[in-house]
């Protein structure tokens, strides 16, 4: 194998490919992340429709594939085959480029998201700053899309979303800073903006930042959690695309593939901001209680979690297969679901084998592999909780009005986040 492939794998230092200078592996990671996020968006699409449907006493997609499992694929095919309409009065070039801006911004963010200590494309010195900056570029796509459509509803949607995002970025940034302040509570007294560094700081201090200085960390986290919903234009802050007011807001004039790019960007941005929240406050890739329960046996037990999760999913799917109506009409669906269950079971088995193999050998490839899976698993699990919360919000709450949204952003969130920041700084100095 060529040297530039192996040198990264052989290096004993735990570095991300970007930091190790391995462009080949960085590219591989980029591709994996791109595919993974796209897959996650597809899953999220199905899950949102399904979960929302069950919130609302209905079944959701049931026709395409067993329990509508193939619905996202059908949707994607439909959207790709749909006629791509550009209104005559629209600004052709800007109309064309707008979804790409949003998509680029949403996906570029993933270069610094640490799925694990080495499971990131690069460990940037200014990771969190880069993330905030690039994700704030996403609003450009929305603003420009609304303007280029040359229509009133998209324009109002764009104006709303630009005002909204600019306002909430302030509170969001201040909340982030109070988390970054906490990273400097070490012997050297220097904090870090690196995403991996932030998680490692939590590891060193032995506490997730959400529980640090108890109410302070939590308040900052809560502010971020609210602001990130506003940043991604999701309910109850989905004013930019408020369908009952602005029909579809900024993407009213969009259709087909171009529209689906907006959706892809929205969901990718949701995952990205959730990843920021997880990294900053919820210990990133760390499993629960890494300091308290650090005996090898605990290590092993926790490393079984990914396998058991998939096993559980497989079991649920099997139950679903068994509960399918005994009618010849459902035969194909039943077979499909069974195949899906077997697939999940196979993945579970694989993960369990890796967990067991990683236990016996100390520093082998299997152990590294197991650690990697663990890190990614816990990270994804925490992000998944946020994604569920997004759906939950949407099912529960009405939509805020524009002036109320602004009022909350400027008159409630901003003072609180400023106060938390100041108090965190004072407490930090005292503790030191």
């Amino acid at each position: 194998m060529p040297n530039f492939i192996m040198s990264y794998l052989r290096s004993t230092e735990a570095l991300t490919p970007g930091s190790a200078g391995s462009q080949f592996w960085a590219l591989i990671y980029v591709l994996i992340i791109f595919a993974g996020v796209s897959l996650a968006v597809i899953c999220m699409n199905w899950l949102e429709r399904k979960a929302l449907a069950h919130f609302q006493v209905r079944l959701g997609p049931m026709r395409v594939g067993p329990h509508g499992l193939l619905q996202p694929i059908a949707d994607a095919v439909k959207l790709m085959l749909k006629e791509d309409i550009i209104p005559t009065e629209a600004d052709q070039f800007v109309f064309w480029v707008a979804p790409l801006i949003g998509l680029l911004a949403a996906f570029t963010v993933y270069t610094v998201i640490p799925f694990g200590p080495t499971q990131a494309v690069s460990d940037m010195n200014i990771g969190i700053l880069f993330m905030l900056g690039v994700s704030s570029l996403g609003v450009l796509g929305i603003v420009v899309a609304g303007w280029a459509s040359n229509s009133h509803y998209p324009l109002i949607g764009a104006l709303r979303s630009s005002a909204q995002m600019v306002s909430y970025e302030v509170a969001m940034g201040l909340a982030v800073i109070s988390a970054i302040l906490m990273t400097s509570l070490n012997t050297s007294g220097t904090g870090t903006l690196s995403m991996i560094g932030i998680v490692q700081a939590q590891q060193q201090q032995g506490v997730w930042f959400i529980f640090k200085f108890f109410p302070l960390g939590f308040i900052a986290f809560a502010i971020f959690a609210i602001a990130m919903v506003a940043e991604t234009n999701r309910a109850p802050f989905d004013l930019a695309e408020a369908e009952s007011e602005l029909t579809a807001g900024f993407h009213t004039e969009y259709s087909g593939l171009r529209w689906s790019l907006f959706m892809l960007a929205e969901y990718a941005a949701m995952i990205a901001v959730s990843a920021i929240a997880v990294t900053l406050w919820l210990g990133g890739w760390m499993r629960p209680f890494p300091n308290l329960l650090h005996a090898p046996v605990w290590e092993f037990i926790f490393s079984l979690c990914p396998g058991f999760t998939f096993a559980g999913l497989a079991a649920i799917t099997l139950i679903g297969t068994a509960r399918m109506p005994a009618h010849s009409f459902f035969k194909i669906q039943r077979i499909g679901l069974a195949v899906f269950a077997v697939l999940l079971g196979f993945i579970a088995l694989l993960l369990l084998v890796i967990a067991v193999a990683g236990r016996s050998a100390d520093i082998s490839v299997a152990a590294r592999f197991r650690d990697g899976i663990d890190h990614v698993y816990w990270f994804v699990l925490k992000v998944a909780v946020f994604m569920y919360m997004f759906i939950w919000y949407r099912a529960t709450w009405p939509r805020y009005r524009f002036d109320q949204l602004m009022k909350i952003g400027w008159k409630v969130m901003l003072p609180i986040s400023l106060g938390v920041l100041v108090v965190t700084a004072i407490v930090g100095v005292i503790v030191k």
Partner: protein
Amino acid sequence: MNPGMHSALNSAVTAANGGMAPVATPWFFYSLAALAVISGVLVITRRNAVHSALALIVTLLSVAGLYLMLYAPFVAGVQIIVYAGGIMVLFLFVIMLVNLDRASKDRQFNRIWPVGLAAACVLMALFVSVIVKGKALFTDRGMPLSESSNTQQIANALYGEAGRMGQYTFAFEIASLLLLVAILGAVIMTKKKI
């Protein structure tokens, strides 16, 4: 732990026996510079203000890329977050409220454009003469990299380190006070009743 950008590049250079070149090549520099210049020209030549704004964003982003190549990631990050993410959104916000039909019919340049061109030429000449005549000023062609990261250097310069006051602490505080006054002034001027 010092996983900075520069260390990444350093280790890239050292570990480059695999045959891959480091990222910071002249090729990148020239393409970013060309992008910045071309989009900068587009900013002033586009009739449509939104197109100009989009070109300006590209300029700002390519300048941010140049900062990155200079091992100044913090400045690059701030460039993106403040200029491209913040100020340009507000720009667009205002531009969208402006009636573009009329703006696009107006004259692109007013009558003093020769003066502007002359000023630009003079500035250009100045730069060239400084570079040509002042070669002695730029003896060190290699970039000395400090041990600490660029972000930390900026922090030290602004806030001081180890109890000492920083080099620019006073200027920084004055500047922030000025900004605060400007914000308050903007609020007072736009709000009819406080």
